[in-house]
Protein backbone atom coordinates (compact mmCIF):
# COMPACT_ATOMS: atom_id res chain seq x y z
CA UNK A 1 0.00 0.00 0.00
CA UNK A 2 1.22 3.43 -0.88
CA UNK A 3 2.89 5.48 1.83
CA UNK A 4 0.27 8.18 1.67
CA UNK A 5 -2.55 5.89 2.60
CA UNK A 6 -0.56 4.42 5.48
CA UNK A 7 -0.80 7.72 7.29
CA UNK A 8 -3.56 8.47 9.76
CA UNK A 9 -5.62 11.55 9.03
CA UNK A 10 -3.77 13.55 11.63
CA UNK A 11 -0.41 12.47 10.29
CA UNK A 12 -1.45 13.42 6.76
CA UNK A 13 -2.72 16.83 7.88
CA UNK A 14 0.57 17.30 9.69
CA UNK A 15 2.62 16.48 6.60
CA UNK A 16 0.49 18.72 4.40
CA UNK A 17 1.00 21.48 6.92
CA UNK A 18 4.77 20.98 6.77
CA UNK A 19 4.72 20.94 3.00
CA UNK A 20 5.93 17.35 2.80
CA UNK A 21 2.77 16.39 1.00
CA UNK A 22 0.22 18.27 -1.04
CA UNK A 23 -3.45 18.15 -0.27
CA UNK A 24 -4.21 17.10 -3.83
CA UNK A 25 -1.68 14.24 -3.66
CA UNK A 26 -3.43 12.87 -0.64
CA UNK A 27 -6.87 13.31 -2.14
CA UNK A 28 -5.75 11.77 -5.41
CA UNK A 29 -4.29 8.69 -3.78
CA UNK A 30 -7.47 7.97 -1.88
CA UNK A 31 -9.72 8.82 -4.78
CA UNK A 32 -7.95 6.41 -7.06
CA UNK A 33 -8.12 3.68 -4.46
CA UNK A 34 -11.82 4.34 -3.91
CA UNK A 35 -12.52 4.26 -7.62
CA UNK A 36 -10.87 0.82 -7.71
CA UNK A 37 -12.90 -0.44 -4.73
CA UNK A 38 -13.81 -4.09 -4.93
CA UNK A 39 -15.71 -4.29 -1.67
CA UNK A 40 -18.74 -2.40 -3.02
CA UNK A 41 -18.12 0.07 -0.20
CA UNK A 42 -19.12 3.04 -2.37
CA UNK A 43 -22.21 3.95 -4.36
CA UNK A 44 -20.56 7.08 -5.76
CA UNK A 45 -16.93 8.17 -6.07
CA UNK A 46 -15.77 11.64 -7.07
CA UNK A 47 -14.27 11.86 -10.56
CA UNK A 48 -11.78 14.40 -9.38
CA UNK A 49 -10.99 16.57 -6.42
CA UNK A 50 -13.95 18.87 -5.76
CA UNK A 51 -13.43 22.58 -6.00
CA UNK A 52 -13.31 24.31 -2.67
CA UNK A 53 -11.05 25.46 0.10
CA UNK A 54 -8.30 23.06 1.06
CA UNK A 55 -6.94 25.19 3.78
CA UNK A 56 -8.53 24.97 7.16
CA UNK A 57 -7.74 22.50 9.89
CA UNK A 58 -8.73 19.45 7.85
CA UNK A 59 -6.38 20.38 5.03
CA UNK A 60 -8.48 19.20 2.11
CA UNK A 61 -8.35 15.61 3.26
CA UNK A 62 -10.77 13.21 1.57
CA UNK A 63 -13.83 12.19 3.58
CA UNK A 64 -16.10 9.26 2.76
CA UNK A 65 -19.71 10.08 3.58
CA UNK A 66 -22.47 7.58 4.25
CA UNK A 67 -25.10 7.90 1.55
CA UNK A 68 -27.66 8.78 4.23
CA UNK A 69 -26.32 12.34 4.26
CA UNK A 70 -27.71 14.78 1.71
CA UNK A 71 -24.95 16.17 -0.46
CA UNK A 72 -26.09 18.79 -2.92
CA UNK A 73 -25.90 17.67 -6.52
CA UNK A 74 -24.45 14.31 -5.54
CA UNK A 75 -26.62 11.18 -5.41
CA UNK A 76 -27.96 10.59 -1.90
CA UNK A 77 -29.86 7.36 -1.95
CA UNK A 78 -29.84 6.03 1.62
CA UNK A 79 -29.17 2.56 0.22
CA UNK A 80 -32.66 2.46 -1.26
CA UNK A 81 -34.22 1.94 -4.67
CA UNK A 82 -36.84 4.52 -3.80
CA UNK A 83 -34.18 7.26 -3.88
CA UNK A 84 -32.18 5.95 -6.79
CA UNK A 85 -30.41 8.83 -8.47
CA UNK A 86 -31.90 11.41 -6.11
CA UNK A 87 -29.90 14.67 -6.09
CA UNK A 88 -30.70 16.83 -3.08
CA UNK A 89 -30.84 20.63 -3.48
CA UNK A 90 -28.94 21.11 -0.23
CA UNK A 91 -26.15 19.60 1.86
CA UNK A 92 -26.42 18.21 5.39
CA UNK A 93 -25.18 20.61 8.07
CA UNK A 94 -22.50 18.28 9.40
CA UNK A 95 -21.04 17.78 5.92
CA UNK A 96 -21.12 21.54 5.32
CA UNK A 97 -19.34 22.08 8.60
CA UNK A 98 -16.63 19.60 7.74
CA UNK A 99 -16.27 21.10 4.28
CA UNK A 100 -15.90 24.52 5.88
CA UNK A 101 -13.10 23.04 8.00
CA UNK A 102 -11.39 21.81 4.83
CA UNK A 103 -12.79 18.30 4.21
CA UNK A 104 -13.46 17.16 0.66
CA UNK A 105 -15.99 14.45 -0.12
CA UNK A 106 -14.29 11.58 -1.94
CA UNK A 107 -17.33 9.35 -2.15
CA UNK A 108 -20.75 8.32 -0.81
CA UNK A 109 -20.69 5.01 0.95
CA UNK A 110 -22.99 2.02 0.70
CA UNK A 111 -25.29 1.25 3.61
CA UNK A 112 -28.26 -0.79 4.77
CA UNK A 113 -31.40 0.73 3.33
CA UNK A 114 -32.50 3.75 5.40
CA UNK A 115 -29.98 2.69 8.04
CA UNK A 116 -32.00 -0.38 8.93
CA UNK A 117 -29.72 -3.33 9.34
CA UNK A 118 -26.62 -4.72 10.99
CA UNK A 119 -24.78 -6.27 8.06
CA UNK A 120 -25.16 -3.98 5.01
CA UNK A 121 -27.03 -6.84 3.32
CA UNK A 122 -30.18 -4.71 3.13
CA UNK A 123 -28.78 -2.33 0.55
CA UNK A 124 -30.53 -2.01 -2.79
CA UNK A 125 -27.04 -1.55 -4.25
CA UNK A 126 -25.62 -4.87 -3.14
CA UNK A 127 -23.85 -5.99 0.01
CA UNK A 128 -20.48 -4.73 1.13
CA UNK A 129 -17.60 -7.14 1.80
CA UNK A 130 -15.55 -7.06 4.96
CA UNK A 131 -11.93 -6.23 3.98
CA UNK A 132 -10.67 -8.84 6.49
CA UNK A 133 -12.64 -11.63 4.82
CA UNK A 134 -14.63 -10.87 1.72
CA UNK A 135 -17.14 -13.62 2.38
CA UNK A 136 -18.20 -11.89 5.53
CA UNK A 137 -20.21 -8.82 6.36
CA UNK A 138 -18.66 -5.53 7.47
CA UNK A 139 -21.55 -4.90 9.85
CA UNK A 140 -24.23 -2.27 9.41
CA UNK A 141 -25.92 -0.10 8.77
CA UNK A 142 -22.79 1.99 8.01
CA UNK A 143 -21.03 -0.97 6.41
CA UNK A 144 -19.65 0.95 3.47
CA UNK A 145 -18.06 3.66 5.61
CA UNK A 146 -16.49 1.08 7.93
CA UNK A 147 -15.15 -1.03 5.08
CA UNK A 148 -13.75 2.02 3.28
CA UNK A 149 -11.77 3.15 6.33
CA UNK A 150 -10.65 -0.36 7.26
CA UNK A 151 -9.49 -1.01 3.70
CA UNK A 152 -7.63 2.28 3.50
CA UNK A 153 -9.86 3.68 0.75
CA UNK A 154 -10.50 6.77 2.87
CA UNK A 155 -8.65 8.07 5.93
CA UNK A 156 -11.92 8.63 7.70
CA UNK A 157 -15.64 8.49 7.10
CA UNK A 158 -18.98 9.69 8.36
CA UNK A 159 -21.53 7.20 9.54
CA UNK A 160 -24.75 7.23 11.52
CA UNK A 161 -25.68 5.25 14.59
CA UNK A 162 -29.25 4.60 15.73
CA UNK A 163 -28.92 1.28 17.59
CA UNK A 164 -25.26 0.54 16.88
CA UNK A 165 -24.74 1.33 13.22
CA UNK A 166 -21.37 3.00 13.76
CA UNK A 167 -20.05 1.02 16.72
CA UNK A 168 -20.88 -2.47 15.47
CA UNK A 169 -19.35 -2.12 11.95
CA UNK A 170 -16.32 -0.45 13.53
CA UNK A 171 -15.90 -3.55 15.72
CA UNK A 172 -16.40 -5.98 12.85
CA UNK A 173 -13.91 -4.11 10.68
CA UNK A 174 -11.26 -3.49 13.30
CA UNK A 175 -11.44 0.31 13.36
CA UNK A 176 -12.64 3.07 15.69
CA UNK A 177 -16.24 4.24 15.65
CA UNK A 178 -17.86 6.87 17.88
CA UNK A 179 -21.56 7.41 18.51
CA UNK A 180 -21.69 10.80 20.22
CA UNK A 181 -24.14 12.08 22.84
CA UNK A 182 -27.52 12.62 21.17
CA UNK A 183 -27.88 16.25 20.14
CA UNK A 184 -24.20 17.13 19.84
CA UNK A 185 -24.18 16.75 16.07
CA UNK A 186 -26.82 18.27 13.79
CA UNK A 187 -29.27 15.91 12.08
CA UNK A 188 -30.28 18.45 9.46
CA UNK A 189 -29.78 16.82 6.09
CA UNK A 190 -29.33 13.35 7.57
CA UNK A 191 -32.08 11.24 6.03
CA UNK A 192 -34.18 10.22 8.99
CA UNK A 193 -34.61 6.68 10.24
CA UNK A 194 -35.48 7.04 13.95
CA UNK A 195 -35.37 10.71 14.86
CA UNK A 196 -34.91 10.37 18.62
CA UNK A 197 -32.04 7.92 18.22
CA UNK A 198 -30.13 8.83 15.02
CA UNK A 199 -26.72 10.45 15.48
CA UNK A 200 -23.87 11.09 13.08
CA UNK A 201 -20.36 10.06 14.08
CA UNK A 202 -16.86 9.38 12.78
CA UNK A 203 -15.16 6.18 11.58
CA UNK A 204 -11.39 6.45 11.90
CA UNK A 205 -8.30 4.36 12.14
CA UNK A 206 -7.45 5.55 15.61
CA UNK A 207 -8.86 7.42 18.56
CA UNK A 208 -6.90 10.59 17.85
CA UNK A 209 -8.44 10.89 14.40
CA UNK A 210 -11.88 10.27 15.90
CA UNK A 211 -11.38 13.13 18.34
CA UNK A 212 -10.14 15.37 15.55
CA UNK A 213 -13.05 14.73 13.22
CA UNK A 214 -15.66 14.84 16.00
CA UNK A 215 -14.21 18.14 17.16
CA UNK A 216 -15.34 19.66 13.87
CA UNK A 217 -18.73 17.98 13.87
CA UNK A 218 -20.27 19.40 17.02
CA UNK A 219 -22.45 22.52 16.87
CA UNK A 220 -25.80 23.89 17.93
CA UNK A 221 -27.64 24.00 14.59
CA UNK A 222 -30.63 26.38 14.44
CA UNK A 223 -32.06 24.16 11.73
CA UNK A 224 -32.24 21.15 14.08
CA UNK A 225 -34.43 21.75 17.14
CA UNK A 226 -32.96 18.71 18.89
CA UNK A 227 -29.36 19.81 18.47
CA UNK A 228 -27.67 21.31 21.51
CA UNK A 229 -24.03 21.28 20.42
CA UNK A 230 -21.32 20.36 22.89
CA UNK A 231 -20.59 22.27 26.10
CA UNK A 232 -16.86 21.52 25.86
CA UNK A 233 -14.45 21.82 22.96
CA UNK A 234 -13.31 18.34 21.99
CA UNK A 235 -9.62 17.83 22.70
CA UNK A 236 -7.13 15.39 21.25
CA UNK A 237 -6.62 12.63 23.82
CA UNK A 238 -3.37 12.36 25.75
CA UNK A 239 -3.95 9.90 28.58
CA UNK A 240 -1.52 7.02 28.82
CA UNK A 241 -2.83 5.51 32.02
CA UNK A 242 -6.15 4.85 33.67
CA UNK A 243 -5.27 5.60 37.26
CA UNK A 244 -8.32 6.09 39.43
CA UNK A 245 -10.72 5.36 36.57
CA UNK A 246 -13.69 3.34 37.73
CA UNK A 247 -14.94 0.97 35.04
CA UNK A 248 -18.27 -0.82 35.32
CA UNK A 249 -19.07 -4.10 33.59
CA UNK A 250 -22.81 -4.83 33.21
CA UNK A 251 -23.36 -8.52 33.77
CA UNK A 252 -26.41 -8.55 31.46
CA UNK A 253 -24.25 -7.68 28.45
CA UNK A 254 -21.13 -9.65 29.16
CA UNK A 255 -22.24 -13.19 29.57
CA UNK A 256 -24.88 -15.21 27.81
CA UNK A 257 -25.26 -14.40 24.15
CA UNK A 258 -21.64 -13.29 23.65
CA UNK A 259 -19.34 -15.56 21.60
CA UNK A 260 -16.52 -17.14 23.65
CA UNK A 261 -13.81 -15.65 21.44
CA UNK A 262 -15.24 -12.18 21.85
CA UNK A 263 -15.54 -12.64 25.62
CA UNK A 264 -11.96 -13.80 25.82
CA UNK A 265 -10.69 -10.65 24.11
CA UNK A 266 -13.00 -8.59 26.30
CA UNK A 267 -11.63 -10.03 29.52
CA UNK A 268 -8.11 -9.52 28.29
CA UNK A 269 -8.96 -5.85 27.81
CA UNK A 270 -10.37 -5.62 31.33
CA UNK A 271 -7.13 -7.12 32.58
CA UNK A 272 -5.17 -4.53 30.67
CA UNK A 273 -7.34 -1.73 32.06
CA UNK A 274 -6.57 -2.87 35.56
CA UNK A 275 -2.89 -2.96 34.77
CA UNK A 276 -3.23 0.62 33.63
CA UNK A 277 -4.63 1.58 37.00
CA UNK A 278 -8.39 1.27 36.50
CA UNK A 279 -10.71 -0.46 38.91
CA UNK A 280 -13.10 -2.89 37.26
CA UNK A 281 -16.34 -3.98 38.87
CA UNK A 282 -19.38 -5.84 37.62
CA UNK A 283 -22.79 -4.36 38.24
CA UNK A 284 -26.29 -4.77 36.98
CA UNK A 285 -28.12 -2.81 34.35
CA UNK A 286 -31.50 -4.36 35.09
CA UNK A 287 -33.35 -3.13 32.02
CA UNK A 288 -30.64 -3.92 29.50
CA UNK A 289 -32.41 -7.16 28.51
CA UNK A 290 -35.55 -5.15 27.68
CA UNK A 291 -33.72 -2.48 25.76
CA UNK A 292 -33.70 -4.50 22.57
CA UNK A 293 -37.45 -4.99 22.72
CA UNK A 294 -38.08 -1.32 23.42
CA UNK A 295 -35.77 -0.29 20.60
CA UNK A 296 -37.51 -2.54 18.12
CA UNK A 297 -40.76 -0.80 18.95
CA UNK A 298 -39.53 2.80 19.06
CA UNK A 299 -37.18 2.85 16.09
CA UNK A 300 -39.60 1.20 13.65
CA UNK A 301 -42.44 3.37 14.95
CA UNK A 302 -40.56 6.59 14.22
CA UNK A 303 -39.29 5.15 10.96
CA UNK A 304 -42.78 4.20 9.80
CA UNK A 305 -43.69 7.87 10.05
CA UNK A 306 -40.40 9.25 8.70
CA UNK A 307 -40.70 7.09 5.60
CA UNK A 308 -44.24 8.18 4.74
CA UNK A 309 -42.86 10.99 2.63
CA UNK A 310 -41.58 8.50 0.03
CA UNK A 311 -44.72 8.41 -2.07
CA UNK A 312 -43.63 9.01 -5.66
CA UNK A 313 -44.97 12.56 -5.79
CA UNK A 314 -42.13 15.00 -5.25
CA UNK A 315 -38.94 12.97 -5.79
CA UNK A 316 -37.62 9.46 -6.12
CA UNK A 317 -39.15 6.38 -7.63
CA UNK A 318 -42.66 6.60 -9.05
CA UNK A 319 -44.74 3.61 -10.13
CA UNK A 320 -48.02 4.68 -11.72
CA UNK A 321 -49.87 1.38 -11.42
CA UNK A 322 -53.49 1.57 -12.55
CA UNK A 323 -53.46 5.36 -12.43
CA UNK A 324 -55.20 5.74 -9.10
CA UNK A 325 -53.74 7.56 -6.14
CA UNK A 326 -53.82 4.42 -4.04
CA UNK A 327 -51.87 2.48 -6.62
CA UNK A 328 -49.33 5.27 -6.94
CA UNK A 329 -48.62 5.13 -3.24
CA UNK A 330 -48.73 1.40 -2.65
CA UNK A 331 -47.03 0.41 -5.89
CA UNK A 332 -44.22 2.92 -5.51
CA UNK A 333 -43.52 1.97 -1.93
CA UNK A 334 -43.80 -1.77 -2.54
CA UNK A 335 -41.29 -1.59 -5.39
CA UNK A 336 -39.04 1.00 -3.79
CA UNK A 337 -38.57 -0.46 -0.31
CA UNK A 338 -36.72 -3.68 0.51
CA UNK A 339 -37.81 -6.43 2.89
CA UNK A 340 -36.27 -5.10 6.08
CA UNK A 341 -37.66 -1.62 5.56
CA UNK A 342 -41.10 -3.03 4.89
CA UNK A 343 -40.92 -5.22 7.99
CA UNK A 344 -40.01 -2.24 10.14
CA UNK A 345 -42.67 -0.02 8.63
CA UNK A 346 -45.23 -2.72 9.38
CA UNK A 347 -44.08 -3.26 12.96
CA UNK A 348 -43.81 0.45 13.56
CA UNK A 349 -47.26 1.15 12.17
CA UNK A 350 -48.68 -1.69 14.24
CA UNK A 351 -47.08 -0.33 17.42
CA UNK A 352 -48.64 3.08 16.84
CA UNK A 353 -52.00 1.91 15.61
CA UNK A 354 -55.25 2.42 17.42
CA UNK A 355 -55.55 0.07 20.36
CA UNK A 356 -51.91 -0.87 20.44
CA UNK A 357 -50.20 2.43 21.24
CA UNK A 358 -50.25 2.04 25.03
CA UNK A 359 -49.11 -1.56 25.03
CA UNK A 360 -46.25 -1.03 22.63
CA UNK A 361 -45.14 2.51 21.95
CA UNK A 362 -46.23 3.85 25.33
CA UNK A 363 -44.53 1.07 27.26
CA UNK A 364 -41.39 1.23 25.15
CA UNK A 365 -41.05 4.92 26.03
CA UNK A 366 -41.30 3.97 29.67
CA UNK A 367 -38.66 1.26 29.30
CA UNK A 368 -36.51 3.93 27.75
CA UNK A 369 -36.84 5.97 30.94
CA UNK A 370 -35.86 2.96 33.01
CA UNK A 371 -32.77 2.31 30.90
CA UNK A 372 -31.72 5.94 31.30
CA UNK A 373 -32.27 5.68 35.04
CA UNK A 374 -30.18 2.47 35.17
CA UNK A 375 -27.30 4.29 33.48
CA UNK A 376 -27.67 7.36 35.68
CA UNK A 377 -27.38 5.17 38.76
CA UNK A 378 -24.38 3.38 37.29
CA UNK A 379 -22.59 6.65 36.56
CA UNK A 380 -22.80 7.53 40.22
CA UNK A 381 -20.31 4.73 40.76
CA UNK A 382 -18.40 4.49 37.49
CA UNK A 383 -16.60 6.79 35.09
CA UNK A 384 -17.29 4.57 32.12
CA UNK A 385 -19.11 1.36 31.35
CA UNK A 386 -17.37 -1.29 29.25
CA UNK A 387 -18.81 -4.09 27.17
CA UNK A 388 -17.93 -6.00 24.06
CA UNK A 389 -19.27 -3.95 21.16
CA UNK A 390 -20.86 -6.86 19.34
CA UNK A 391 -21.68 -10.39 20.49
CA UNK A 392 -19.77 -11.96 17.61
CA UNK A 393 -17.09 -11.28 15.06
CA UNK A 394 -18.06 -10.70 11.43
CA UNK A 395 -20.49 -13.39 10.29
CA UNK A 396 -20.82 -14.79 6.79
CA UNK A 397 -22.85 -13.07 4.11
CA UNK A 398 -26.28 -14.67 4.06
CA UNK A 399 -25.86 -16.27 7.47
CA UNK A 400 -28.52 -14.24 9.29
CA UNK A 401 -30.63 -12.84 6.48
CA UNK A 402 -33.28 -15.53 6.96
CA UNK A 403 -33.79 -14.72 10.62
CA UNK A 404 -34.54 -11.06 11.34
CA UNK A 405 -34.71 -11.56 15.09
CA UNK A 406 -31.28 -13.19 15.14
CA UNK A 407 -29.96 -10.20 13.22
CA UNK A 408 -31.55 -7.81 15.72
CA UNK A 409 -29.94 -9.59 18.63
CA UNK A 410 -26.55 -8.57 17.32
CA UNK A 411 -27.39 -5.11 18.72
CA UNK A 412 -27.83 -6.08 22.38
CA UNK A 413 -24.65 -4.37 23.54
CA UNK A 414 -25.06 -1.17 21.56
CA UNK A 415 -28.78 -0.47 21.91
CA UNK A 416 -28.91 0.50 25.61
CA UNK A 417 -26.65 3.54 25.16
CA UNK A 418 -28.70 4.58 22.12
CA UNK A 419 -31.92 4.58 24.10
CA UNK A 420 -30.35 6.77 26.77
CA UNK A 421 -28.70 9.10 24.24
CA UNK A 422 -25.28 8.43 25.77
CA UNK A 423 -21.95 8.47 23.95
CA UNK A 424 -20.28 5.17 23.08
CA UNK A 425 -17.00 4.45 21.34
CA UNK A 426 -15.77 1.17 19.92
CA UNK A 427 -12.07 0.44 19.58
CA UNK A 428 -10.50 -2.72 18.16
CA UNK A 429 -9.23 -4.81 21.08
CA UNK A 430 -8.07 -8.06 19.55
CA UNK A 431 -8.93 -10.92 17.26
CA UNK A 432 -11.04 -14.03 17.64
CA UNK A 433 -11.94 -17.00 15.53
CA UNK A 434 -15.54 -17.20 14.40
CA UNK A 435 -17.63 -20.09 15.74
CA UNK A 436 -17.77 -21.67 12.28
CA UNK A 437 -13.97 -21.86 12.09
CA UNK A 438 -11.82 -19.85 9.76
CA UNK A 439 -9.30 -17.11 10.17
CA UNK A 440 -9.40 -14.81 13.16
CA UNK A 441 -11.32 -11.58 12.84
CA UNK A 442 -11.36 -8.27 14.78
CA UNK A 443 -13.26 -7.83 18.02
CA UNK A 444 -14.36 -4.51 19.47
CA UNK A 445 -14.42 -3.02 22.97
CA UNK A 446 -17.16 -0.52 23.75
CA UNK A 447 -16.84 2.26 26.30
CA UNK A 448 -19.99 4.15 27.28
CA UNK A 449 -19.86 7.43 29.15
CA UNK A 450 -22.27 9.92 30.72
CA UNK A 451 -23.78 12.49 28.40
CA UNK A 452 -21.31 15.08 27.04
CA UNK A 453 -18.31 13.26 28.49
CA UNK A 454 -16.70 12.47 25.12
CA UNK A 455 -13.40 14.00 26.15
CA UNK A 456 -13.12 11.58 29.05
CA UNK A 457 -14.21 8.66 26.91
CA UNK A 458 -11.68 9.50 24.22
CA UNK A 459 -8.92 9.66 26.80
CA UNK A 460 -9.78 6.22 28.23
CA UNK A 461 -10.05 4.76 24.76
CA UNK A 462 -6.74 6.31 23.76
CA UNK A 463 -4.91 4.95 26.77
CA UNK A 464 -6.20 1.47 26.07
CA UNK A 465 -5.50 1.80 22.36
CA UNK A 466 -1.87 2.69 22.97
CA UNK A 467 -1.36 -0.42 25.01
CA UNK A 468 -3.50 -2.76 22.95
CA UNK A 469 -1.37 -2.06 19.90
CA UNK A 470 -3.96 -3.36 17.46
CA UNK A 471 -2.63 -3.43 13.92
CA UNK A 472 -5.24 -3.04 11.21
CA UNK A 473 -2.84 -2.71 8.31
CA UNK A 474 -3.59 -6.22 7.05
CA UNK A 475 -7.02 -5.05 5.88
CA UNK A 476 -5.51 -2.06 4.16
CA UNK A 477 -3.54 -4.05 1.59
Amino acid sequence: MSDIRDLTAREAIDQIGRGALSSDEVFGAYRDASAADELNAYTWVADEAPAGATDGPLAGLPLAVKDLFCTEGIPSQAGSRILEGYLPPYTATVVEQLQAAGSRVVGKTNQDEFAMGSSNENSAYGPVANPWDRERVPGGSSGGSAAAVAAGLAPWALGTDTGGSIRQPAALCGIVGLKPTYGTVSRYGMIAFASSLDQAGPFTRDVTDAALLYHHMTARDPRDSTSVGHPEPIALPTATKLDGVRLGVPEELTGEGIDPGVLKAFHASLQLAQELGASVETFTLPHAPHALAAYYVLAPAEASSNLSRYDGVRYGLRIEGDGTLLDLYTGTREAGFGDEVKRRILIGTYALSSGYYDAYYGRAQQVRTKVAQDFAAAFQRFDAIVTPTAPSVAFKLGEKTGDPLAMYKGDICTIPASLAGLPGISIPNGMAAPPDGGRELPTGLQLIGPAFRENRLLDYAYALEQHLGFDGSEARS
Partner: protein
Amino acid sequence: MISREQVLHVATLSRLALTDEEVDRYAVELSDVLDHIETISALDLDGVPPTAHVVEVANALRPDEPRPSLPREAIFSQAPAVADDGFLVPSPQAS
Protein backbone atom coordinates in the same frame (compact mmCIF):
# COMPACT_ATOMS: atom_id res chain seq x y z
CA MET B 1 -49.09 -13.48 17.24
CA ILE B 2 -49.75 -11.24 14.27
CA SER B 3 -52.20 -12.65 11.78
CA ARG B 4 -52.39 -12.25 8.02
CA GLU B 5 -55.34 -9.92 8.49
CA GLN B 6 -53.42 -7.73 10.86
CA VAL B 7 -50.49 -7.57 8.47
CA LEU B 8 -52.85 -6.59 5.65
CA HIS B 9 -54.52 -3.94 7.81
CA VAL B 10 -51.22 -2.41 8.76
CA ALA B 11 -50.00 -2.63 5.17
CA THR B 12 -53.05 -0.62 4.13
CA LEU B 13 -52.37 2.01 6.79
CA SER B 14 -48.78 2.34 5.58
CA ARG B 15 -49.61 2.16 1.87
CA LEU B 16 -47.70 -0.98 0.98
CA ALA B 17 -49.01 -3.29 -1.74
CA LEU B 18 -47.67 -6.55 -0.35
CA THR B 19 -47.65 -9.74 -2.35
CA ASP B 20 -49.33 -12.81 -0.88
CA GLU B 21 -45.92 -14.34 -0.30
CA GLU B 22 -44.83 -11.27 1.62
CA VAL B 23 -47.95 -11.21 3.75
CA ASP B 24 -47.40 -14.83 4.74
CA ARG B 25 -43.70 -14.41 5.36
CA TYR B 26 -43.99 -11.17 7.27
CA ALA B 27 -46.71 -12.60 9.46
CA VAL B 28 -44.26 -15.27 10.59
CA GLU B 29 -41.22 -13.00 10.86
CA LEU B 30 -43.08 -10.24 12.65
CA SER B 31 -44.70 -12.69 15.04
CA ASP B 32 -41.21 -13.74 16.00
CA VAL B 33 -40.19 -10.15 16.66
CA LEU B 34 -43.41 -9.34 18.50
CA ASP B 35 -42.91 -12.36 20.73
CA HIS B 36 -39.62 -10.88 21.80
CA ILE B 37 -41.14 -7.46 22.21
CA GLU B 38 -43.72 -8.96 24.55
CA THR B 39 -41.02 -9.08 27.22
CA ILE B 40 -41.79 -5.46 28.01
CA SER B 41 -45.40 -6.26 28.85
CA ALA B 42 -44.32 -8.14 31.96
CA LEU B 43 -42.46 -5.21 33.45
CA ASP B 44 -43.93 -3.14 36.24
CA LEU B 45 -43.91 0.33 34.76
CA ASP B 46 -46.47 2.02 36.98
CA GLY B 47 -45.75 5.67 37.41
CA VAL B 48 -42.76 5.63 35.08
CA PRO B 49 -42.88 8.69 32.83
CA PRO B 50 -42.32 8.05 29.13
CA THR B 51 -39.24 9.54 27.46
CA ALA B 52 -40.14 11.40 24.32
CA HIS B 53 -36.91 13.37 24.13
CA VAL B 54 -33.55 12.41 25.64
CA VAL B 55 -32.37 16.00 25.37
CA GLU B 56 -33.55 17.99 28.38
CA VAL B 57 -34.24 21.30 26.70
CA ALA B 58 -37.23 23.33 25.64
CA ASN B 59 -38.04 26.22 23.33
CA ALA B 60 -35.88 25.92 20.23
CA LEU B 61 -37.89 28.74 18.67
CA ARG B 62 -37.05 30.46 15.42
CA PRO B 63 -37.43 34.22 14.84
CA ASP B 64 -40.13 35.05 12.28
CA GLU B 65 -37.65 36.15 9.63
CA PRO B 66 -38.06 35.08 6.00
CA ARG B 67 -35.34 32.99 4.39
CA PRO B 68 -34.94 32.36 0.66
CA SER B 69 -37.13 29.63 -0.75
CA LEU B 70 -35.83 27.04 -3.19
CA PRO B 71 -35.83 27.97 -6.87
CA ARG B 72 -38.56 26.07 -8.65
CA GLU B 73 -36.18 24.46 -11.15
CA ALA B 74 -34.27 22.93 -8.29
CA ILE B 75 -37.29 21.12 -6.91
CA PHE B 76 -38.87 20.23 -10.25
CA SER B 77 -35.60 18.73 -11.49
CA GLN B 78 -36.09 15.89 -9.03
CA ALA B 79 -39.86 15.52 -9.48
CA PRO B 80 -41.08 12.45 -11.34
CA ALA B 81 -44.17 14.12 -12.79
CA VAL B 82 -44.68 17.85 -13.19
CA ALA B 83 -47.48 19.76 -14.95
CA ASP B 84 -48.92 23.25 -14.75
CA ASP B 85 -46.11 24.40 -12.44
CA GLY B 86 -47.05 21.73 -9.95
CA PHE B 87 -46.65 18.11 -8.94
CA LEU B 88 -48.93 15.79 -10.83
CA VAL B 89 -50.99 13.26 -8.86
CA PRO B 90 -54.00 11.12 -9.65
CA SER B 91 -57.11 12.83 -8.29
CA PRO B 92 -58.05 11.56 -4.85
CA GLN B 93 -61.69 11.32 -5.93
CA ALA B 94 -61.06 9.27 -9.04
CA SER B 95 -60.50 5.57 -8.53
